[in-house]
């Protein structure tokens, strides 16, 4: 039965863990809280070490908390990260997205910095500053940086944050055995979506939308083992989905993939969603990494990477690139469909009057592949971090999802 305006405004008769208020995707206050309280304090992927293969290589990154960063590989091989800001007059220090420079030199007034962030040169320092300013006072702002979990360069703006390993916990346990070999990025793409960043992560956190993907239906949903895949929630809002054997030859013109991945069964597929906006997606021959970077409540920059093994022969690499592009490239079968879905959501959640009122995350199938426990688990962590219920975000600071009215047991942590 179609609903009246009053009925449309009425929360669904579900536990408050099982739906969210659509305003969490558009409210500017919540957005700023997310930037400060979530992204400003957590580990995110800036790039991959293969993007900085040589000493003095650098790579820029738009941090989701708002600041631009630059990662630099030093002469000692260590990768460090800094604000991409000259401390002198606030110009962007490095303009190109990647390059190699023995010294990072600001084009504005020629101040120079080494790969450890030390200021190594102030043009006409004695004449202008006499002894009032020391280079040691004007080094770059260093940001916590660790390389790990497949060679990714992780950064954290919070100097007092727990370590990366503490943040990840056991969430990448399914994948870590497959991330030991050195990896290399062969695909990098940015996409700006008119949708909130959480909507992209939501899509990566549920497989029910395989109904949208013809490719996934015929190679996965219609194959044995698909509904045996289970969601496993982990501390800090992460979740994983176990493997199955994808039948790539079931898609017209397809065939079994000719290259595999170390330790992964043929046709295997493991996916891990990391709070607040990163997805590891290892699908038979290719590792895909999504990084969601919020730009505004209804606007998100996605960084999409495809990786193979550094040891690939040219023929093996060509196979991985082809496999990647079939579904995940900008002309691939699945990526375009995912964008259509999320941009559609973005239109109806762009503000409080755009149509959507409550978004359901209520499927329960014993944590099976179409269970929406991944999203529920995410929003439990989101609520804990912000001190707001995702279902009733304006009901009063301090109320948290999953505590008050849930009739179902809380999600395992």
């Amino acid at each position: 039965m179609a609903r009246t305006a009053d009925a449309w405004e009425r929360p669904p008769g579900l536990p408050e863990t099982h739906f969210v208020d659509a305003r969490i995707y558009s409210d500017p206050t919540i957005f700023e809280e997310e930037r400060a309280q979530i992204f400003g304090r957590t580990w995110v992927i800036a790039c991959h070490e293969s993007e900085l293969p040589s000493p003095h290589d650098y790579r820029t990154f738009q941090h989701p908390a708002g600041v631009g960063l630059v990662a630099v590989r030093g002469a000692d091989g260590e990768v460090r990260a800094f604000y991409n800001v000259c401390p002198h007059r606030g110009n962007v220090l490095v303009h190109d997205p990647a390059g190699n420079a023995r010294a990072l030199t600001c084009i504005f007034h020629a101040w120079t910095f080494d790969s450890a962030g030390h200021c190594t040169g102030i043009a006409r320092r004695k004449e202008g500053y006499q002894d009032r300013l020391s280079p040691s006072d004007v080094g770059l702002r260093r940001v916590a940086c660790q390389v790990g979990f497949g060679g990714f360069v992780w950064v954290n703006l919070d100097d007092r944050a727990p370590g990366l390993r503490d943040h990840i916990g056991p969430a990448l346990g399914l994948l870590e055995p497959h991330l030991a070999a050195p990896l290399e990025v062969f695909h990098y793409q940015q996409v700006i979506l008119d949708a909130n960043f959480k909507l992209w992560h939501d899509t990566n956190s549920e497989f029910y939308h395989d109904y949208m993907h013809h490719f996934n239906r015929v190679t996965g949903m219609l194959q044995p083992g698909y509904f045996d895949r289970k969601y496993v929630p982990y501390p800090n809002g992460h979740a994983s989905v176990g493997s199955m054997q994808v039948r790539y030859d079931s898609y017209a013109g397809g065939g079994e993939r000719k290259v595999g991945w170390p330790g992964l069964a043929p046709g295997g597929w493991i996916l891990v969603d990391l709070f607040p906006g990163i997805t590891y997606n290892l699908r038979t021959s290719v590792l895909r990494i999504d990084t969601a970077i919020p730009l505004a409540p209804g606007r998100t920059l996605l960084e999409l990477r495809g990786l193979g093994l550094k040891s690939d022969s040219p023929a093996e690499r060509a196979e991985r690139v082809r496999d990647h592009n079939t579904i995940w490239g900008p002309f691939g079968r699945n990526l375009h469909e995912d964008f259509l879905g999320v941009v559609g959501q973005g239109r109806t959640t762009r503000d409080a009057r755009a149509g959507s009122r409550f978004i359901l995350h209520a499927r329960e199938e014993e944590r099976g592949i179409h269970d929406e426990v991944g999203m529920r688990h995410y929003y439990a962590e989101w609520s804990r971090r912000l001190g707001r219920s995702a279902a009733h975000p304006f009901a009063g600071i301090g109320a948290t999802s999953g505590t008050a009215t849930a009739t179902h047991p809380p999600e395992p942590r």
Partner: protein
Amino acid sequence: MSDASPRRSPTELERSLAHDLVYELSLRLDAGDFAGYLERCAPDLRYTIGAYSPELRKPMLWLDLDKPGLRTLFDTLPRHHSDHARLSRHVTVYKVEGPPDVDDDGGAGGGDLQVVSALQVFRTVLDGGATTLFAVGKLFDTVRLDLETRAARLVRRRIELDTRMLGIGSHLPL
């Protein structure tokens, strides 16, 4: 035949046939006439879309299909959910080069033409008809001619995109 061999200038007929083919291919795709597009492709077609990534400092390959692969892509489109906004291609042929002056055996050169064109693709949404630029790049085509029948077929199309931010992407080739 070596790619490095100097190429002769095309005849007016060759140039005309090459121009016509490049423009006809764009019109076919714009019209959604995929069968008509494939008719103008040689059996040994290879079609690629790539872009250079300044972030990776490497070239990337985003689509690589032979003729059966392209046919399958077209045939499976109805099974997929695709953006229904219309893509319109604006192509300008910049350069046509004839076959090499001499072939590897030292005889008179025969063979395929090389054609370089500028490509702009515009996207027009159904609701309201607003048009935005989708992508710019260049087409590097190899064209095979049969002068007796005055038929031209596309043997190789390499699209090098300048644009890498492609919005929600596309299920269609460019």
